[in-house]
């Protein structure tokens, strides 16, 4: 039986980060993944392809907005095959690069699916049809999550998309229904909307992006409501029925009244769930939570001391950057370092237009938990840069501990907000105070000034808005 010091199961942003870090520390590493190269959902079927398409969407939207500035373009001609090809080339470049990096680090990369046969051994069903047994000293499970499906919606239809098939751009539907008002649905809905589809969203809860502060979501809702065909809140889908020219969707509105509509395509984006099936965890001492996540401690160690778990499979939030940070902690723990996964903030970004992002606590959470806080907001209407972009539909807000001025949370909505949140995350991690942000010179004219000015608002001294500090 082959032996390895460390086996990493799954080579997404958590798994490949773990494998690379371990190899750099001198460990003998085997990485197992079904795809040809490392990358996982993030690179193959998630973050990267969706952002490539969202970039295109942004361009298309801006050509329309340009009319407002006196510049008009003809309707764009969209070559879907070429667009798909370009998106695939982006993915190919990234994953291919990772494959090279893995080789350079002398990582034994096996294309296949691993199943634990004990706390020390694995069986690998390789893509080429052969199987291999592997004995390991330590294992890191980084197998990720899969798309949540609802059996009642599982109709055999090429018109029913999920977040993976939607990225393959099968067509530009006339009318698209997005089930679920979460970030995946809104991002993909935005892409199709920009490409020319009439997009509707149906969401159970009373608002889009449940959990986010409403004052941030409001900017996004306003934009989406204007662009999309229809936003149906507090409504739900009863059934889907495949018809020759579309899918007939039976729904129920917020008053409980049933209604139906026909869409060319339906995109179900309900959520993701941990991918523990078939891992053979029953042959180890690894325990899972009720929701199917693998239970880990702060060192990402499972109940089986030889086995670690990181990324989506180890719990929320299911975000690539959380996974790669956890990867480092797990590998360092294996290497004998004293370390722990203890971030003060994990930034979350919704790449819609405008982008919406968050780090640290939300105002809603602070209020619900009775955490002493003050909110300082800087509306982008007062930002010079936002005005030059003709995009004043943004807001930067800070959640501040009034006792010491420390930044507890940062929320930003607006175009490019995803880049700005990094400063907020750093501020929280550094234990920075609003004063620190205020006293840091920010370049003018940029959107980053809104962070500084929000801090100034806290002290009642913002240059560009007048809001005296409450006594």
């Amino acid at each position: 039986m082959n032996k390895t010091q460390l086996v990493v199961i799954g080579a997404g942003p958590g798994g490949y980060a773990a494998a690379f870090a371990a190899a750099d520390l001198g460990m003998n590493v085997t990485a197992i993944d079904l795809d040809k190269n490392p990358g996982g959902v993030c690179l193959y079927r998630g973050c990267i392809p969706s952002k490539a398409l969202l970039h295109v969407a942004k361009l298309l939207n801006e050509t329309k907005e340009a009319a407002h500035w006196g510049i008009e373009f003809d309707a764009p001609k969209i070559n879907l095959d070429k667009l798909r090809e370009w998106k695939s080339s982006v993915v190919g470049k990234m994953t291919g690069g990772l494959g090279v990096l893995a080789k350079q680090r002398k990582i034994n990369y096996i294309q296949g699916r691993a199943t634990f046969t004990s706390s020390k051994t694995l069986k690998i069903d390789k893509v080429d049809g052969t199987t291999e047994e592997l004995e390991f000293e330590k294992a890191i499970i980084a197998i990720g999550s899969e798309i949540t499906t609802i059996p009642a919606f599982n109709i055999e239809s090429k018109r029913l998309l999920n977040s993976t098939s939607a990225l393959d751009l099968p067509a530009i539907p006339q009318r698209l229904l997005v089930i679920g008002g979460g970030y995946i649905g809104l991002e993909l809905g935005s892409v199709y909307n920009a490409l020319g589809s009439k997009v509707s969203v149906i969401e159970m809860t009373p608002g889009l992006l449940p959990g986010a502060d409403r004052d941030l979501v409001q900017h996004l809702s306003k934009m989406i409501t204007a662009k999309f065909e229809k936003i149906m809140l507090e409504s739900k889908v009863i059934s889907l029925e495949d018809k020759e020219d579309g899918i007939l969707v039976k729904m129920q509105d917020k008053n409980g009244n049933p209604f139906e509509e026909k869409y060319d395509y339906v995109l179900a984006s309900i959520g993701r769930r941990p991918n523990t099936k078939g891992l053979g965890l029953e042959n180890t001492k690894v325990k899972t939570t009720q929701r199917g996540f693998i239970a880990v401690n702060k060192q990402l160690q499972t109940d089986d001391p030889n086995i670690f778990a990181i990324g989506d499979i180890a719990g929320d939030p299911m975000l690539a950057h959380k996974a790669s940070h956890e990867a480092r902690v797990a590998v360092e723990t294996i290497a004998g370092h004293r370390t722990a996964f203890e971030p003060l903030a994990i930034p979350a970004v919704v790449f819609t237009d405008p982008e919406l992002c968050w780090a640290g606590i939300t105002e809603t959470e602070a209020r619900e938990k009775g955490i002493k806080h003050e909110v300082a907001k800087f509306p982008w209407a007062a930002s010079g840069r936002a005005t030059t972009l003709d995009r004043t539909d943004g807001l930067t807000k800070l959640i501040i501990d009034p006792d010491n001025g420390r930044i507890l949370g940062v929320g930003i909505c607006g175009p490019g907000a995803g880049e700005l949140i990094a400063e907020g995350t750093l501020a929280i991690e550094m234990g920075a105070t609003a004063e620190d942000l205020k006293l840091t010179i920010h370049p003018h004219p940029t959107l980053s000034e809104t962070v500084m000015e929000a801090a100034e608002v806290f002290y009642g001294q913002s240059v560009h808005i007048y809001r005296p500090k409450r006594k």
Partner: protein
Amino acid sequence: MSNEFKLPELGENITSAVVSKVLIKAGDTVKEDQSVIEIETDKATIEVPSSVSGKVKEVFAKEGGQLNIGAVVFSLEGEAQSAPAVEETKETPVSETPAPAKTETKAPVATSTEAPKVTGGIKDVLLPELGENITSAIVSKVLFKVGDVIAIDTPLLEIETDKATIEVPSTVSGKVVEILVKDGGKADVGKAFMKIQGDDTVKSAPAPVQSTKPAAQVSEPVVVDTPVESKYVRTTMDELVVMNEELKSPVMTAEPPRAFMEMQPPLQSKSAPAAPSVRRLARELGVDINQVPGSGIGGRISIEDIKAYVKKLNEGRITLSPSSYPQSGFVNIKQEALPDFSKFGEIERKAMSNIRSKTAEHLSYAWATVPHVTQFDKADITNIEEMRKTFAPVVQKAGGKLTMTSILVKVVTAALKQFPQFNASVDMGKKEIVYKKYFNIGIAVDTEYGLMVPVLKNTDKMNLTQISVEINNLSEKARNKKAGIDDLQGGCFSISNLGGIGGTYFTPIVNTPEVAILGVSRSQLEPVYIDGNFVPRNMLPLSLSYDHRLVDGADAIRFLRFISETLENPFKLLVEG
């Protein structure tokens, strides 16, 4: 205006302080800016000036007690006023006016400052002009609830216009009786958004008061009688689960998933203000960063703070550096945790006597800092024992007791003259050797309080009788707790004679900063091979421990040989002593 003085904000992160001194007492007349208490914070001792003036009724701060920020320091008699006005009232009337009269005035004053008077009828409050061309706005947040008493300038609504988020301050004061808008709802400029039971005297409000019913003017009048906050029910994926279940989906399990934006790490509001790299270092060093005092602004913790804290922690365990010998370097030894002895049987804990704890400390220090070597030898004392017995009565007459110890003092003194490196100390700090030109010998005495080492001074100037008498005196003093500091310090060399009790050899610990100690055990008759025959001789076991930093092995054995030979042939004392 207040009739109390509360502990004001003292600085960032300071939530309480220890009162080190109270500078006022009941009946005192306090002026604004007069220091009233002295407090100690983590950072400094501060005098706290009063912000009120008047006659002190009761002082609540106690010396040595803890005061939280905002706690009442003292109360004033009668109507307190701030600053200038008080100057007049205070000087004359305070002392003359009887206290009760003033107490009565207290109540209404307080009410009027804390809450606007609630009188008069119910009125509408209208949404003021928000800006050019703005006729309506989205209410992003209602900042008050029914029953709240609001004052002029209290922020009431947060509204979103096309341009910006604006807070709408109140132009009136009174008690809120009805709210006509809701979070996320629309409000029209010039139309009522709430009703208050107001103070009729407030006439300056810019919004014209209307008597018509506002309900008709507002699209969706809603009476909110629960706190507004509760409107934002956490709308999460929990509900999505419910939906899934309704759709007969078995995929999701019972543990409620959290929605995307809520998946933040738990807030550690008390978490130390430190950069991630600093927190990582603390973890690696096994330090709870929340315990580390930060030296930066707002208690910010630096890498240096962590290092200083770790150093302090280590020193706080056992510090083996008696302050008397700081030049000898220091040793940090971690105190091992003691097991719970009572698990194994009955125990009794007693406080260490001072002398025991000092002995422990000093010997630990000596043991840890002095590189010890012990050299053994035997001296044939057959002849000198005979002589001792012969001369004992002479000494006894003088009030002393001629013992082997007194003889050894004499012999050692001679040896020290011969080998000056034994009458010396090490100064590692200065890299110097201190040679002593005087001869003081310490004698270890076993007392019921513990080990004591009285010192015989100038033994080179004493004969055996004087030495014997002096040993007697000092031992008595030590046993009767009469030994003074002078009797216990200034030693050059120590002798520990356990021969009276027994034993063969032992390894005494050098009484640093001395550099050697002679251990004496019980003499025994032994067969000694002399001139082709074994003859019984009285042999005395000697153990010499020395500080190898200064004394080398060859010197030590020469020193010890000198002692043995002198004991064997005391005439040496006359020749070389």
